[in-house]
């Protein structure tokens, strides 16, 4: 067996996105096992909910990384725990695939212009928070022209003063300036739902055109609603974890028009060759095959498959061990896991650059009407639609590495 640790947040503060993502990872790994595992060796997956509490993640990791059945790879989750484990996984040579897309996890050597800490064993599937924002800003600059906007558009970064919302702040603001935006001082709002009318009133007053929402869905919804109430007309740009089908449902009409980056090429109802595999994977936990899977589920599946294929390669090239898996990650260009064509976005990792994906798929949430029903019905009825706007290729600039 190949031991794999899977840290999930199913009960903690980020469980609203943690649950579907973890389900995706878990189903994918189960599916892989049902198909024979890694060249005939099964994966021994240990899924553990750590409740988004870093200390628990650490002790769990210690359990996994010691003894004879030391894990070959780790499927991780949040910012705090991923960062806390970065040093350990590096030393223990255990590739860690995280749900944290912080830019500085993309610098394996620590020699990037902004890098501080090398993260040689950290990987994630998707554009980094910074690159995703860059992509959206590039889109916004276009959009402003298309809309016939006059003068400089105004951009503002919004989010809590925490590592995750703040990760892309400077990167975004700098690019926005370069792109001709007027960058207003950032606006803070907590990671929890609350009344953010004040923030919206100032947005309205200062005439902001584009605003990045750095938080998770729960608090973003509060902002969207408040801004709707006070009538602030702002084009909001979410982050990968900030908008999805469930958030759109909860926010209702307030979510209408929000753009956000997607890590997969299609949504659950999309049409792609790989969707067949995905539906089969989904049956691992939903035998009836009726469940609607939100975007995070699909991202989880892609992440798990990247790991699986790296293990495949490793098992043929010296055995499924951390260093080999890491080496395997650098073997392919424009990598799309077999069977998931058209779903997972091509990614490329190199020894010096862990920015796997720089193509940013930008979607827009469309909400028309009452959102009382279940997500699957809403999507089926077209009340909630996630529309693809465009794909922006963010250049892989060396000075943006690790930032």
């Amino acid at each position, binding site marked *: 067996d190949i031991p794999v640790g899977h840290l999930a947040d199913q009960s903690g503060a980020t469980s609203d996105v943690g649950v579907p993502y973890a389900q995706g990872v878990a189903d994918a790994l189960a599916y892989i096992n049902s198909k024979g595992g890694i060249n005939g060796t099964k994966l021994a997956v240990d899924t553990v909910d750590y409740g988004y509490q870093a200390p628990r993640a650490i002790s769990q990791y*210690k359990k996994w990384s010691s003894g004879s059945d030391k894990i070959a790879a780790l499927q991780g989750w949040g910012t*705090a725990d991923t*960062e806390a484990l970065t040093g350990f996984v590096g030393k223990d040579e255990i590739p860690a695939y995280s749900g944290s897309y912080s830019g500085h996890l993309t610098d394996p050597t620590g020699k990037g212009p902004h890098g501080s800490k090398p993260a040689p064993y950290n990987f994630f599937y998707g554009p980094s928070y910074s690159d995703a924002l860059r992509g959206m800003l590039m889109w916004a600059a276009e959009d402003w022209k298309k809309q016939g906007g006059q003068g400089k558009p105004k951009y503002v970064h919004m989010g809590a003063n925490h590592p995750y919302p703040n990760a892309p702040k400077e990167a975004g603001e700098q690019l926005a300036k370069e792109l001709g935006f007027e960058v207003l001082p950032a606006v803070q709002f907590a990671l929890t739902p609350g009344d953010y009318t004040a923030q919206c009133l100032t947005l309205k007053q200062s005439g902001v055109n584009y605003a990045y929402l750095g938080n998770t869905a729960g608090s973003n919804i509060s902002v969207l609603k408040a801004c709707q109430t006070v009538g602030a007309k702002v084009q909001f740009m979410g982050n990968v974890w900030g908008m999805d089908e469930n958030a759109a449902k909860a926010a209702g009409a307030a979510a209408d028009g929000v753009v956000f980056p997607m890590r997969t090429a299609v949504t659950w109802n999309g049409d792609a060759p790989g969707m067949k595999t995905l539906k089969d994977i989904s049956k691992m936990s939903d035998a009836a095959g009726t469940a609607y899977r939100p975007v995070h589920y699909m991202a989880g599946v892609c992440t798990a498959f990247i790991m699986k294929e790296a293990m495949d390669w490793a098992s043929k090239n010296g055995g499924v061990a951390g260093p080999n898996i890491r080496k395997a990650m650098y073997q392919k260009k424009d990598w799309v896991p077999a069977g998931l064509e058209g779903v997972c976005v091509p990614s490329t990792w190199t020894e010096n650059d862990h920015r796997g994906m720089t193509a940013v798929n930008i979607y827009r949430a469309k909400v028309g009407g009452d959102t009382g029903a279940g997500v699957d019905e809403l999507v089926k009825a077209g009340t909630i639609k996630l529309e693809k706007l465009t794909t922006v290729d963010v250049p892989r600039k060396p000075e943006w590495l690790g930032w």
Partner: protein
Amino acid sequence: MANISIIPSGDFKTSYGTDTTIFPTKTSRNFAILGVVLLLACPAFMDRYWLSLLIQIGYLGIAALGLNILVGFTGQISIGHSAFFGFGAFASAWLNNSLGVPVALAIPLAGVVTTLVGLLFGMPAARLKGLYLAIATLAAQYILQDFFARADWFTGGTAGTIAEPLTIFGFAFDTDERYFYVALVALVVMYILATNLMRTRDGRALVAVRDHYLSAEIMGINLTKYRTMSFGISAFYAGIGGALYAHYLQFVSVEGFTILFSIQFLGMIIIGGLGSIMGTLMGTAFMVFLPEAMQALTKLVSGTAIDTALNLKDNIAFLREMSIGLVIILFLVFEPDGLAHRWKQIKAYWKLYPFSH
């Protein structure tokens, strides 16, 4: 029974010196020393998981002891302890990274720096009492958290900062097996210091302030000084604990030091027993082991009949969380005075055994 000598029915003291020792009886002292010796051998037979839990107990136990000095001994509730813990972590990393202070020195220095911060936030203690003071410490929690996120020069801002491993004469304490000794030594030293403090003048003064501040003042105790000082001492312990944490994880980020963490610290000392030094350690161990035990238990449940009957599946996580909460509640219902109290009763029982009363 067989070995009567283990718990003597009476321990006769012939001088005041023997009456003021840390351990009430020779046997208890020998047991403690034996315990430490056993612990020294731990890395030889424990895996990293267990060691890491023990290390956690080590640095959390130190910080919790600081909180107990503040809450349990001086009677001033704080719900901002994790912020001081965090400050110590950042301070130690900063001292090392920016000023080049060797880690071995940075850790105690971080304690000192945190003490100063503690004194600053302890100033309201001169005027505020009870929950009013508690909420002022809540303010400290948020203000410090905000500071961490802002002070790029100090904390690396929201991105966090790395902390080098502790190295002494070129020997790096960068594995669990090695760091375990660091944590153990620090723990023993800090606990002995606290024990000594509490049996000397200033320690007594703190307790006196807790029990009856009006008469304490009349007995010659400067209330303002001791109330504030207790914050300082508590912050010192938090700072040391935090610094140890920083150099263990080798990375510090603001995210770690939230109000929930502060509440966990409170949990440790309440469960351990307010105003009890050994209780603090027991409480810390309780709070560290509890989630692990529940995790193990729920793991046993998963896949069994109970699992299918309750249709748990992923919800097993919630079951675990609930049982953590429930264990805390049940524990307090049956042992409201904390583990230290129960421990005392067990000792009293054995002393009197086989005669009750």
